[in-house]
């Protein structure tokens, strides 16, 4: 029951995403009366749920890396702060981005919990906020030019054109809804994934739903509810505010938006690109509002830029800057209240130590150890405090300090036969990997890296390959396996372990 209460903020966030972002997918089609609202809402709901459950894992993982929220109370407040920001900004008439609100709220949790924000993930996310609208605008221009050429070549009758556009809007809307579900479910439920309380569920016909997928299904249903109950009004008004769109332009905008969201969410596409040695886009939850606005502005610029209402554009950009800041502040204040007034734990207690073994490990990682001796032996309860001590005592840069902090995290791991039998299943791990785990039965470790180093020494199946685009796919799989194993063998369950 308490779990459902904590999840309610995620469902609230899902509802607000459905109410707002569904308008990005079908708003122009419904606004231009090409598709009826009920048709749009039904298709959108079905495909959002499908996208959430089938393809939601990719983008959700990045949020887990940004800030591994390790307590239900913390996840509740992060989602609540994001949802509150979105609702407040919507009431003020400012267009909002769910992913920005969520990222802001996670950083708020990081500040509150004294956890270092993973700079690599944050940089990746912020860079996509810039790339996403630009890419979407570029796609929109490309699709528009191509579609115009096609129309000129095929010369369809006005009515055939209308019929094809209508069906294309429905098909692309369905694709957009799938992509929205796959990409943005990470925003709605991503923060709950590390603390997912649901066991795996076996369904008929050999289907199975993992704990995360059950969360995504719930989130998808919340989004669908938002679509049905509140998106009608937003759908009716979207599209015409920034630049007047024709149905054909609306189609191009939705297609560009959907392709961009898909590119940033599809694990299969990433795998396909990497397997042929091509660079892949990071799997990050991007803002569907940004994608739509990028596409609309792209088309506006293609038409000479005269029809664009720049005032509206400035307001939107201002909203993009303020959303994460407001969400961050709200989350921080909310977490403070939740922890100190309602006595709800919002994070797990952590410990960090710079033991001689940790210093040796840091040395093996190729990082300079000069100055570490001065902070040796100290015990720290937050990443911030250790980071501060390192900054004062050593010449390590921020990235290097981040790695030292991760190596210094203390967490008890127990190689317990019962847990191995329950969680280390052949479907998830290679036989060689399982054999290596079983050879360590009865042992205990203070740091995650100690367990992993031990496993690496037993079999190459646990060793990460040298970093290169070609090896990224294998390494990603291996990292996932290492994370799963650590969750399974952790003495005190809950939260996501830190893996160096």
């Amino acid at each position, binding site marked *: 029951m308490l779990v459902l209460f904590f999840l309610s903020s995620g469902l609230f966030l899902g509802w607000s995403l459905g109410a707002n972002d569904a308008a990005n997918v079908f708003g122009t089609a419904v606004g*231009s*009366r090409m598709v009826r609202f009920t048709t749009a809402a039904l298709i959108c709901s079905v495909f959002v749920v499908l996208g959430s459950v089938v393809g939601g894992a990719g983008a959700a993982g990045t949020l887990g890396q940004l800030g591994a929220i390790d307590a239900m109370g913390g996840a509740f407040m992060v989602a609540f702060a994001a949802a509150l920001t979105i609702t407040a900004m919507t009431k003020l008439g400012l267009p909002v981005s769910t992913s920005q609100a969520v990222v802001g709220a996670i950083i708020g949790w990081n500040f509150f919990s004294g956890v270092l924000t993973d700079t690599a993930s944050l940089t990746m996310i912020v860079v996509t906020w810039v790339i996403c609208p630009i890419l979407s605008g570029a796609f929109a221009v490309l699709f528009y030019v191509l579609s115009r050429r096609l129309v000129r070549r095929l010369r*369809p009758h*006005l*009515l055939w054109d209308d*019929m094809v556009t209508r069906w294309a809007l429905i098909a692309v809307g369905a694709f957009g809804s799938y992509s929205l579900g796959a990409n943005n479910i990470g925003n709605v439920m991503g923060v709950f994934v590390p603390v997912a309380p649901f066991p795996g569920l076996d369904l008929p016909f050999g289907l199975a739903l993992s704990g995360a997928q059950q969360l995504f299904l719930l989130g998808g249903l919340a989004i669908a509810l938002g679509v049905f109950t509140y998106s009608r009004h937003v759908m009716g008004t979207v599209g015409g505010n920034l630049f007047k769109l024709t149905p054909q332009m609306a189609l191009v905008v939705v297609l560009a938006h959907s392709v961009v969201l898909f590119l940033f969410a599809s694990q299969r596409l990433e795998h396909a690109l990497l397997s042929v040695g091509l660079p892949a886009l990071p799997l990050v939850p991007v803002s569907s509002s940004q994608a739509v606005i990028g596409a609309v502005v792209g088309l506006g610029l293609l*038409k000479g830029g005269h029809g664009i209402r720049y005032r509206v554009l400035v307001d939107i950009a201002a909203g993009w800057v303020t959303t994460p800041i407001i969400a961050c502040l709200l989350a921080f204040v909310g977490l403070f209240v939740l922890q100190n007034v309602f006595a709800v734990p919002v994070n797990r207690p952590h410990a960090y130590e710079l033991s001689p073994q940790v210093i040796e490990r840091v040395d093996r990682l190729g990082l300079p150890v000069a100055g570490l001796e001065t902070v040796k032996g100290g015990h720290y309860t937050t990443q911030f405090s250790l980071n501060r001590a390192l900054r004062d005592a050593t010449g390590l840069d921020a990235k290097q300090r981040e790695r030292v902090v991760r190596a210094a995290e203390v967490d008890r791991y127990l190689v317990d036969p019962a847990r191995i039998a329950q969680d280390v299943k052949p479907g998830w791990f290679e036989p060689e990997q399982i054999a290596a785990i079983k050879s360590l039965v009865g042992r205990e470790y203070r740091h995650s890296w100690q367990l992993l180093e031990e496993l690496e020494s037993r079999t190459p199946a646990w060793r990460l390959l040298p970093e290169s685009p070609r090896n990224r796919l294998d390494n990603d799989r291996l990292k996932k396996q290492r994370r799963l194993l650590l969750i399974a063998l952790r003495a005190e369950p809950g939260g996501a372990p830190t893996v160096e």
Partner: protein
Amino acid sequence: MPILLFKRTRALVVQIDEFLDTVGQAALLFERGVADYVAGRHDHFETHYRAIDDAEHRADELRRNIEKQLYRHSLIPEARGDVLGLLETTDDVVNQAKHTLGMFLVERPELLPGMNDDWTALGATAARTAEAMVLATRAFFRDPYTVNDHLHKVYFYEKEGDRQAMALKRRIFDTDAELARKTHLRYFVLNVDRISDASEEVADRLAIYTIKRTV
């Protein structure tokens, strides 16, 4: 569902084509009707009048049906207003053609001698204007980028019709015929030329609608 939509769209495309065929046919019937009246072939004239009457009814019926379908199924929401306006003004050309031939039938104006060729040419120019307008309208539905190729012909024939009408009126009023007869004939010159004016009105709308569709 998609098959039903496909059939409905195809039926509507056929109806629009038939409507434009009817307008084009009415223009030809008008030209023939004027030529028959001028040549004194009254039987033929009456046959053509009956044919244009049928065409006018058919055009009305098709137009109403197309309009109903467009509204009922919310088709072409962006261009619906334009298309409805276009169909109505195009229908006005047929109405005007029938109305003018009807006046010839009822009022039987006595033409002045030596001007038969002028009357025939005026009727032919009005028909050419309407034909060019039909081509432009058809292009609007099928290939909006070529509408202008036809529009300039509409404007050319309309101007030519005005010039011919003016010349004919001057010739009529230069004769010693009674003023009442001359005034009566001027009234007919104006009505024949009105076909070109109605076509020009359609062309003006088309020019704007085409910009909207191709921008």
